């Protein structure tokens, strides 16, 4: 195959994938609307199962990473702030950093790695095993049956995981400052005075948006799985990579918007 032909073919494949993604998005939006109008059609049991897997099974790692993030941030920033004798402001830095930015971001990346890849692998395996075809021929829309419950689950799970991860991060920071002879009560008093309702709410809304992205990209990758030996693996990888890229881009856009609107 010639150089230009291979470029053309690659471009065609990318455009096709993009078109399929838009078609999937459209189908998901329509299905979500139908389920909103007729809630009886929603698979609550499947959503509960996906929610349990995303939240309870993902909690130890989200809290663990959050805790370590708090410890690392506290150590790194305390070293600089100590020079000015204001290491107590580590609490303020941690509060703003975790609630506004790092809490939702890091939890979303963890969720993309766990739930996004799991969704792609589960749906991809079902596709390869003809289970998705079986649903279609039974008259059950695969998007309503497989995708919506998973998306609903991660949109709900993300804020919960995020807040727990942020709290674990603050506990980590408190322990570090305790080692530096900053009393815990002072630490928590700074956390309390720095944090605002808007800051926490903004972080949680951002978390829900990231959850939506993880769910959409994971399920979309699963639905596009090819029946090849490496099909499911490719789908899982693309769910994780696509999820992380989408989260980073969205986070960047939200940061610019916040700056522009002075939020």
């Amino acid at each position, binding site marked *: 195959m010639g150089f230009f032909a291979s470029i053309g073919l690659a471009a065609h494949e990318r455009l096709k994938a993009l078109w399929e993604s838009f078609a999937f998005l459209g189908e998901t939006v329509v299905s979500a609307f139908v389920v909103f109008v007729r809630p009886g059609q929603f698979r609550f049991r499947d959503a509960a*199962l996906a929610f349990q897997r995303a939240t309870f099974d993902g909690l130890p790692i989200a809290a663990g990473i959050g805790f370590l993030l708090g410890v690392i941030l506290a150590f790194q920033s305390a070293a600089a702030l100590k020079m000015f004798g204001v290491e107590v402001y580590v609490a303020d830095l941690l509060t703003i950093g975790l609630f506004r930015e790092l809490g939702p971001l890091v939890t979303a990346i963890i969720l993309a790695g766990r739930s996004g890849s799991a969704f792609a692998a589960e749906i991809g395996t*079902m596709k390869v*095993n*003809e*289970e998705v*075809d*079986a649903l*279609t*021929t*039974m*008259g*059950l829309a695969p998007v309503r049956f497989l995708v919506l419950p998973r998306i609903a689950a991660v949109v709900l799970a993300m804020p919960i995981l995020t807040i727990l991860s942020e709290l674990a991060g603050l506990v980590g920071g408190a322990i570090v400052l305790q080692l530096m002879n900053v009393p815990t009560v002072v630490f928590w008093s700074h956390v309390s005075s720095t944090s605002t309702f808007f800051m926490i709410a903004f972080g949680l809304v951002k978390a829900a948006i990231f959850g939506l992205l993880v769910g959409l990209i994971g399920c979309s990758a699963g639905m596009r799985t090819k029946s090849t030996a490496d099909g499911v693996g490719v789908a899982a990888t693309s769910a994780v990579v696509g999820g992380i890229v989408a989260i980073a881009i969205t986070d960047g856009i939200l940061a610019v918007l916040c700056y522009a609107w002075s939020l």
Partner: protein
Amino acid sequence: MEEALIVLEHVDAGYPGTVILEDVSLEIKRGEVFILLGGSGCGKSTIMKHMIGLNPVLAGKLTLAGLEWTAKNRAALCRKIGVMYQSGALFGSMTCLQNVMLPMEEFTRLSRKERREKALRLLDDVELADAADKMPNEISGGMRKRVAIARAMALDPEVVFLDEPSAGLDPITSSALDDLILKLRREKGMTFVVVTHELSSIFKIGDRAAMFDKARRGLIALGTPQALRDTCEDGFVRKFFNRGEIHG
């Protein structure tokens, strides 16, 4: 004369941009076991996918019980068909009983108790009542296919499609599955469309068969399996029945 349940008129089968079979015309009559025959890759599964509404036909007209596969008719047509896929395609997160109950849960007004009773009856029909509470990964490939047949019959369809029911099964299990198809046809009067290239199955269960050829991209013979074997003059058909499956 028996009523035609599935009618294909000058159908081109394949995927967008790829025509696999051209100008296929045939009728499948109500109550018969119809076999789609041919070598590997000849398009018999592709044409079945058109019949069950997974892919639209590329050209021509395909009707099932007088209806074409359009968005408007989809819901009605889905209730007229049952499909057993090659792998069984049971949902791994559900027990065998839940798999059979699923279509009823979505499309009937039966109470949970009635759904359960009907699903157990269907599992009993396929001689798997004992496996009701087992997960699909706890039963053998042959049993999974039987459960898939029970699920395919859950909505009392007019026609059941079976995609390579013998694939991956030993001869004894495969023969037992053939017996089951004959029993269901006898007791329930259902129409079966079976994709296979197992000669023993073709002669045991088939009322009529259609033979497709990859090289000629079309339907090359139509008739009873015995007639195809004994009287058909086509070289490919003769070779198929004399030597078994032909790999394309």
